[in-house]
């Protein structure tokens, strides 16, 4: 089958520094995918390469089976917003959209349709410099929707939005995807997208950390065990021999994923290691995300 988005060993090097490192993933149609990672993880660089704005150092990416730049009229297949501020301040919102609709060969009537869709009809003839951040975000979205695309790519769309704006965006994306269309949305805060996405791609330092459904992420990693011991290194080693991964927290405890407190206690006893604290924790999704991304960096 043809994937909506396919990234194969995508790599980008800036001045010898790997911004994106051998990144491979696929996105199927009809899904909302959260593209997650801390700031500087390489999310935006990846999106730029997917959309033909930046050339990969190696590897390649396709959208609907071809490189973005080879889509005949890309606006009719893909809508993307990379920055919420990409407007000439002295141009009206409507004229901004008209410059783009002309490039895609779309009529002005389509401009008025998308303005109504993002609830900007009233402000359409005002210059963008008078727009609030929320209005700019919606104008950006309107531009992405001009060609009635099948795939929407949004980079940190919730940045700077007030709670009402975040809710509006969430409803909007659900609505968009309910018709079998596809969304790829990046964020550095899992909570922003957790209620919206079906699956997550988590990257850190340019590498893929996790590719899973949101359900798997929740059920498989939310139970962890917090353990403190005077011999923390030895304990971590003993756990690893038993197939349990752990990370060291800031207060010198170990956080062991996918384990029960009984199992961790038994392993410590068998290894002859003293334990000062043993506690089962159900972490929130956000903690899971932080663990996954900070674990890679240490």
């Amino acid at each position, binding site marked *: 089958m043809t994937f909506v988005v396919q990234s194969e060993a995508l790599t980008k090097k800036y001045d010898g520094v790997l911004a994106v490192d051998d990144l491979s993933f696929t996105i199927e149609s009809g899904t909302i995918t959260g593209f997650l990672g801390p700031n500087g993880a390489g999310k935006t660089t990846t999106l730029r390469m997917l959309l033909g704005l930046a050339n990969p150092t190696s590897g390649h990416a396709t959208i609907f089976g071809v490189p973005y730049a080879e889509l005949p009229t890309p606006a009719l297949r893909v809508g993307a917003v990379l*920055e919420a501020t990409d*407007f000439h301040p002295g141009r*009206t919102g409507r004229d901004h959209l008209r410059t783009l609709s002309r490039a895609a060969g779309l009529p002005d009537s389509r401009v008025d349709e998308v303005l109504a869709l993002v609830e900007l009809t009233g402000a359409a003839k005002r210059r963008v410099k008078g727009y609030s951040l929320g209005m700019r975000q919606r104008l950006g979205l309107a*531009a992405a929707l001009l060609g009635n695309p099948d795939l929407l790519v949004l980079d940190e769309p919730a940045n700077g939005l007030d709670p009402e704006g975040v809710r509006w965006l969430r409803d909007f994306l659900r609505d968009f995807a309910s018709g079998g269309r596809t969304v790829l949305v990046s964020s550095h805060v899992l909570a922003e997208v957790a209620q919206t996405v079906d699956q997550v791609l988590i990257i850190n330092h340019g590498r893929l950390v996790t590719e899973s459904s949101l359900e798997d992420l929740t059920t498989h990693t939310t139970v962890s065990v917090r353990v403190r011991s005077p011999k923390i290194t030895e304990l971590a080693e003993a756990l690893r021999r038993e197939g349990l991964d752990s990370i060291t927290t800031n207060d010198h405890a170990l956080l062991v994923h996918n384990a029960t407190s009984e199992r961790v206690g038994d392993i410590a006893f068998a290894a002859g290691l003293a334990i000062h604290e043993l506690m089962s924790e159900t972490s929130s999704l956000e903690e899971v995300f932080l663990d996954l991304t900070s674990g890679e960096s240490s």
Partner: protein
Amino acid sequence: MNQLRAELLKIRSTRTTIGLLLGMILLALIVIILTCTLSPIDQIFTEQDQVGLLSFGSIAGVFSALAGIMLVTSEYRFGTMRPTFLFNPNRSRLFASKALAGLLAGLVFGVIAEGLTFAIGLAILEGRHIHIALSGSNITELIVGSVVGTALWGIMGVGLGAIIRNQVGAVIALLAFGFVVENLVFGLLPSVGRFLPVHAGDSMLGFTGQHYLSGTIGSVVLVAWAVVLAGAGLAAIKGRDVQ
């Protein structure tokens, strides 16, 4: 064609280009009215004097080049290059549309500036009962040279903007080169300076000073400059990532 329509709308939908156009008109009016009214008769009597007087419309070249620079650099400055590239990832076609839009804007600038200069300049000279020493071919050369030169400056502005990308940097580069560097080189080494774009453009207007190229060679040289700058601009647009 769609992209060209988009670029022309970009020019019309902000106040920048209109501002440049009004600034040019104002400057042309002031200079032509003052020089034609105040110059003593013995300084505006000969054919070459009058060519010099009525060539002021070619100042449109500066404004046309600025408009071309804006057409590219304001897209980088305000980030609209991202949606522009997303809607048209074919960078060669995109750049060609911008260069063509710069050329068309330049034509408009050139026609307005030289038209004003001629209409007002000739009217004032007539009013002062000064004999018009210009021949028909002088007049054709002035009008065609000024309008074509101004249009070519529009393309050169687009090329320069694509190479430098920083708006202030590109504007300074244009003004410093056009008003300082060229005049220095022409003053010190006229055999080299006459091949530089401003002086090549002047030769298209019918100046016959000893160091000037002929009109035909001047045209070829200015077209070559436009081709070189456009080519370098295209290479810059194609080769660089968009941040």
